[in-house]
């Protein structure tokens, strides 16, 4: 007899079972015995609680740990900027603040809001740099290299604020127009916008890439497009409708004002005598004004 045959014969012994009369009588006896020891039917609430607890225990611990880790990662990326927001440019945690701000920016979906937040962060950086440089304990011969780096950083932040403000104001105006004049985009409009890339610098490119629907909304005809695009620069041209003229003036004013204040902030920063900077926060105040413009 092979092993397989023997096993199949053994399997048939599964049919051996106790007598049904014994099964029935023993069952009743057994239930009576456990009832005497306090067994009873559980309430629905208690069963629900047991099911919940059992599910938690049954969930594989590595999976549970991974879930908790992911949750901590997501929460910390959303809120870590608040924890590190006080880190100054000369602190070791400053890099953590930069990273958390970037993470925060990535969670903002609306491009206009994202831009505003980026401007706010850049302004905060510039203000913090001013504050640090105004501290005589830091701004001395020993830290000459770091001071030079911070100066350079300030200028970079100011430049990025300037660019982002221009972009932010342009986007805000275009989105306001789109509510009143919803029209479709023409291919010619895209090519015209691209032609003006060199004139507009980075703003047009950002508008084209990030806000294509908004750009669409402002286009009515190829010639009008050309006029509107040009109007965002320092040139002024007459347009066909009064409504368009009104919008272009407001846009131009905003940018001019923002540019002016940024220049003033830069100038204030450049002429600050750092040893007396404790009382002089004009660069910081100017940057606050820029922040108010873009709101």
């Amino acid at each position, binding site marked *: *007899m092979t*092993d397989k045959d*023997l*096993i199949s*014969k*053994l*399997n*048939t*012994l*599964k*049919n*051996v*079972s*106790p007598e049904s009369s*014994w*099964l029935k009588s*023993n*069952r009743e*006896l*057994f*239930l009576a*015995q*456990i*009832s005497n*020891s*306090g*067994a*009873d*039917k*559980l309430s629905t609430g*208690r*069963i629900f609680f*047991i*099911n919940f*607890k*059992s*599910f938690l*225990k*049954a*969930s*594989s611990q590595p999976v549970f740990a991974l879930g908790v880790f992911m949750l901590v990662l997501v929460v910390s990326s959303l809120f870590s900027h608040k924890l590190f927001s006080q880190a100054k440019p000369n602190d070791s945690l400053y890099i953590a603040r930069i990273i958390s701000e970037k993470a925060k920016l990535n969670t903002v979906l609306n491009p206009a809001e994202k831009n505003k937040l980026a401007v706010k962060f850049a302004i905060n950086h510039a203000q913090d740099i001013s504050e640090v440089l105004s501290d005589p304990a830091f701004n001395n011969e020993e830290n000459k290299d770091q001071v030079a780096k911070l100066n350079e950083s300030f200028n970079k932040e100011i430049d990025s604020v300037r660019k982002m403000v221009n972009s932010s104001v342009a986007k805000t105006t275009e989105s306001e127009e789109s509510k009143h004049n919803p029209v479709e985009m023409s291919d010619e409009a895209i090519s015209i916008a691209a032609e003006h890339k060199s004139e507009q610098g980075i703003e047009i490119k950002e508008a084209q890439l990030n806000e294509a629907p908004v750009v669409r909304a402002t286009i009515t005809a190829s010639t009008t497009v050309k006029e509107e695009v040009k109007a965002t620069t320092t040139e002024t041209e007459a347009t066909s409708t009064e409504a368009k003229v009104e919008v272009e003036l407001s846009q131009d004013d905003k940018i001019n004002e923002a540019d002016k204040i940024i220049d003033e902030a830069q100038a204030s920063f450049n002429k600050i005598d750092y040893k007396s900077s404790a009382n002089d926060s004009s660069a910081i105040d100017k940057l606050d004004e820029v922040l108010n413009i873009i709101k």
Partner: protein
Amino acid sequence: MSSNIVKKFKNKQTLSRLKSRDKEVFTEVYDQNVTDIHRFVYFKIGSREEANDLTSIIFLKTWNHIQNNTLEDAKTLRALLYKVARNAIIDYYRERGSHKPVSLDDEQNPVDIAADMSQSDKIDDDQDLKRIISKLPFLKEEYREMIIMRFINDLSLEEISDITQKSRGNVRVLLHRALTALKELMES
């Protein structure tokens, strides 16, 4: 992985409800396992009457064990029942003071063979089965236990490993040796 989690959940849920003295769930547990436990005990000790008594004791002991102890040592309720059954059989042998193999081929207590077997199968299988049943008690205790759990009661290697506190590899080796020993007994 999801089926494992469902299995684990059901097991934890059943044990927790038993711990909370849920009569309903223990009735289900009894109905699902009484035949298997009875069969296990019967093939171990060889007497139907004794198997009836022991089976009742085993379920009552399991109930009391759940109420009075933590249940972390038993992965499944079935494993717990078999552990209690093994201990109850050891106590039974101790009380009897002997460990002689008892023949199952007893005319006063014939083994019930399922009525759904075909007539031709019955004749051949009856003889083969009777031979197997007559030789089983002469197997080493450990081998007999392995054969009953694995090939008659269909326990998995993991369950047997948990019940006997042996590794899976060890269980596999024991099963192979048990089958070889039974074959040799039948051929002798």
